[in-house]
């Protein structure tokens, strides 16, 4: 394999040590060189001191999935030396701080050691604990710049953009970069065989995380009320929403806001606020993660049955229970689809990357209001918190929110009578009215038994009529959720079906399989309830590999339940250790099954 622009490296530090700036400096510089790059932040559920890693994959071919195979390890955390050194690919490199004598655990005959006296250099050139620690990080960035051929000018430019207004900081950062750069240059054969060469593959792209993109989607969708309770890995979404709102929705003259962000006391309250705001007519949403959804179950059933829109972002993390809050999984697929007691079913959207997170955020509000029901957008820690290279976000200025059937004061005034749950159009969707609009619009929303006129009932037929219509309504959304993405000849014997962030790994796996002569058709579902094309795909292929990130094969469960296709027709390929899915896992899973069959 050509290693120029095709390699991966990993930086091991301690949490809270300030390495994030250095890591994103490196990422950004590579990106500016026009070379596709992905970064995965592997951090602990801790504020200071526990091990943290940053993984950078460079792929001129444009592969963005995580790879578990690292050519270079920057091992700066003694607590994880042993583990870290094991992860280097044979023939690879290990960069360590040679200020101290070499730790025994760093010995491996099949890799090359690169010792750089980072601490020593920084102690010599900087004063004060804080600066010394901080600059050590920037120094390793400088060294990597030399070793990997990252354009030094670009780094300089990036530092200027960042610290332009603070010359002193600019100077010390540049000095630290130079220290690392120069030391590497003079002591090692730079660049290494794994290195960068400028390309032009990033000019229409951006580096963005899914939480930021989803928050932007909420802004563009016209959402005005955000309610939340902090929980990793969703927290940064509301922080981004606030940032954007302060930028775009604040009338500085009058000092008034065209948004409200409510930090609730818990998730029960957050979803209550969202339902209340939507009932009152605002587009309102809440970002959360698994434990939050669990707590929202009761309220979600209310919104489903009383038919009130609500948009919930579930940035999934490793379950069950508190699980591993800083590791990724797709483990809430079942819970979101059927949340709450009683018979329920909810619309779900599954973005595969930050760009879709942006688009589906907008879509979610349209669907929630059109179908008057909760809509989930399921991302995960990997999509939500990591920086992904995606095509620039597009916006069509002709877009106007689909508010669904909301009666105006005029319509209500003209109407003979208004009955909240009457299916006038035969599509299962009854018109709603908003508080304060018109006396005739009044109705009494309730989660208890009601008939189609909105009256309280305990009558079997009246009750059944309404819940049957709601089932029809939600099932109807299968035609409105984003259609699956497909690829392949269409008539292959094998299929791969996946969801969300597994996309990148699957695409890479499809290419690798093709290289081995194994042709597969590919489908990625993007919405629930599933459309008919999903059933068709499953029925058409002898074997479909269902690729997902959870222990119990939840996507496969949903497929079985909703398409009727027997489980046996699906081969489950799962990885759920908490890292993002990689092509490696997909291929290994498929190979194991193919061998089993053969």
């Amino acid at each position, binding site marked *: 394999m050509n290693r120029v622009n095709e390699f991966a490296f990993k930086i091991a530090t301690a949490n809270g040590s300030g390495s994030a700036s250095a890591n994103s400096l490196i990422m*950004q510089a590579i*990106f500016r060189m026009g070379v596709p790059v992905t970064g995965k932040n592997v951090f602990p559920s801790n504020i200071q001191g526990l091990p943290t890693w940053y993984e950078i994959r460079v792929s001129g071919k444009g592969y963005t999935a995580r790879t578990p195979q690292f050519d270079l390890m920057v091992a700066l955390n003694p607590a994880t030396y042993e583990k870290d050194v094991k992860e280097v690919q044979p023939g690879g490199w290990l960069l360590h701080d040679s200020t101290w004598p070499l730790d025994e655990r760093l010995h491996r005959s099949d890799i090359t050691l690169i010792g750089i006296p980072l601490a020593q250099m920084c102690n010599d050139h900087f004063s004060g604990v804080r600066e010394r620690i901080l600059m050590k990080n920037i120094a390793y960035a400088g060294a990597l710049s030399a070793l990997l051929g990252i354009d030094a000018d670009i780094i300089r430019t990036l530092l200027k953009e960042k610290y332009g207004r603070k010359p002193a900081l600019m100077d010390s950062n540049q000095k630290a970069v130079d220290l690392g750069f120069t030391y590497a240059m003079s002591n090692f054969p730079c660049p290494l065989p794994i290195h960068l060469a400028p390309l032009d593959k990033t000019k229409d*792209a*951006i580096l*963005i995380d899914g939480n930021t993109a989803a928050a*932007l989607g909420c*802004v*563009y969708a*016209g959402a*005005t*009320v955000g*309610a939340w309770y902090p929980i990793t890995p969703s927290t940064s979404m509301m922080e981004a929403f606030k940032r954007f709102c302060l930028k*775009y929705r*604040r*009338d500085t003259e*009058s*000092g*008034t*806001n*065209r948004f*409200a962000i*409510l930090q609730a*006391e818990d998730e*029960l*309250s*957050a979803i*209550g*606020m969202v*339902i*209340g*705001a*939507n*009932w*009152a007519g*605002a587009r*309102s949403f809440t970002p959360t993660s698994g434990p939050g959804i669990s707590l929202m179950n009761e*309220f979600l059933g*209310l919104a489903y049955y*009383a038919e009130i829109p609500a948009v919930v972002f579930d940035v999934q993390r490793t379950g069950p229970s508190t699980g591993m809050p800083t590791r990724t999984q797709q483990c809430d697929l079942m819970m979101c689809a059927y949340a709450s007691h009683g018979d329920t079913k909810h619309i779900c959207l599954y973005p595969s990357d930050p760009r879709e997170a942006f688009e589906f955020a907008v879509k979610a509000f349209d669907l929630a209001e059109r179908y008057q029901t909760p809509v989930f957008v399921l991302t995960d820690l990997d999509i939500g918190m990591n920086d992904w290279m995606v095509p*620039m*976000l*597009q*916006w*069509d*200025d002709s*877009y106007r*929110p689909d508010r669904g059937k909301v009666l105006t004061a005029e319509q209500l005034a003209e109407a003979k009578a208004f009955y909240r749950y009457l299916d006038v159009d035969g599509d299962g969707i009854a018109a709603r009215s*908003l*508080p*304060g*609009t018109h*006396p*005739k*619009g*009044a*109705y*009494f*929303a309730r*989660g*208890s038994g009601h008939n189609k006129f909105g009256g309280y009932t305990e009558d079997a037929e009246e009750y059944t009529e309404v819940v049957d219509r709601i089932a029809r309504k939600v099932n109807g959304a299968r035609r409105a959720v984003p259609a699956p993405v497909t690829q392949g000849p269409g008539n292959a014997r094998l299929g791969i079906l996946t969801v969300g962030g597994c996309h990148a790994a699957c695409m890479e796996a499809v290419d690798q399989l093709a290289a081995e002569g194994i042709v597969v058709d590919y489908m990625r579902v993007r919405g629930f309830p599933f459309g008919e094309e999903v059933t068709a795909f499953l029925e058409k292929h002898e074997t479909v590999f269902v690729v997902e990130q959870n222990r119990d094969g939840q996507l496969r469960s949903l497929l079985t339940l909703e398409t009727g296709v027997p489980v046996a027709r699906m081969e489950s390929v799962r990885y759920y250790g908490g890292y993002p899915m990689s092509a490696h896992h997909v291929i290994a899973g498929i190979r194991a099954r193919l061998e089993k069959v053969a």
Partner: protein
Amino acid sequence: MTYIAKPRVHHPALQKNEIGLTRRDYEGTVTTLCAGCGHDSITAAIIHAFWELSIPPHTVAKLSGIGCSSKTPAYFLKEAHGFNSVHGRMPSLVTGANAANGAITYIGVSGDGDSLSIGLGQLCHAIRRNVNVLYVLENNGVYGLTKGQFSASADPGSLSKRGEPNTMEAIDGCLMALTLGATFVARSFSGDKAQLVPLLKAGLKHKGFAFIDVISPCVTFNDHEGSTKSYAYTRENTVEVVQADFIAPAKAITTEYDPGAVREVTMHDGSTVRLRKVADDYDPADRDRAYHYIRKKHAEGEVVTGLLYISTDSKDMQAQNSLGATPLVQLPYEQLCPGSAELAKLQQQFR
């Protein structure tokens, strides 16, 4: 306190208010509560208060949790949007609705189980946020709808239907609200319309969270003072005999008395509650004094009623969130979406 005037008396039911509506226009569907339930008296007072204030019914939203008390929004203001939600979580709904549309008059109705047991956290936090809502806690010391278990406001020592004593301290919603920095705290009695109506009106006009704890006897399961004698009587003579499914028709308890005075009110089970109405010269501007006064009178076996505390200069949630005069729901989409050009510009940050 200029807006808490005594209600004008002797309105014929069809007299019109300033906007030409009769009291009938403020009614809802027919109650399904037990005959004589205190909650129905509160409903009547609410109807009266809205009517007197000449608030157009459709500009009101009425929300509740679950319980007998929480059913009552169906029984007033049929032209207002209503929301009978889930148990104990109405405060969050009203908070969200309020953020979305501050131009609506909000009234929340709840019970002591709904507010002080399952809903305690939400209630406290809505108070803390100073959400602009009139919050009426219809307090009967029991879970009416689930048939008479103790709620958190049941007095220690009071006896259940089955004769078991409550061993725990009662939560006093007013003391709680005062401690949390509530900006309007009042207590009244369902049967004292003369006091209740003006308090409701004041609460509706208050910009912020107006908390009114209304003692509201439950005909069926009420045991407010825990007078053993009366319960023992009931047990011997009624409960066992009819397997507890007979609810004797009763009359709502009413009372009228003067500010500053004490009135002993006999509950349906024969027990009594001593109500003390704050005197005309009571100053509701001192939070600590109010707290102290309630505690002191409580120690003397009296329940203080009236407007206990009010702060008129505090910011409500809308103001704290710098919301403008136009409610969020009325902002045109154009004022919300930054547009494609801005998106392109913004994305330069992400490169």
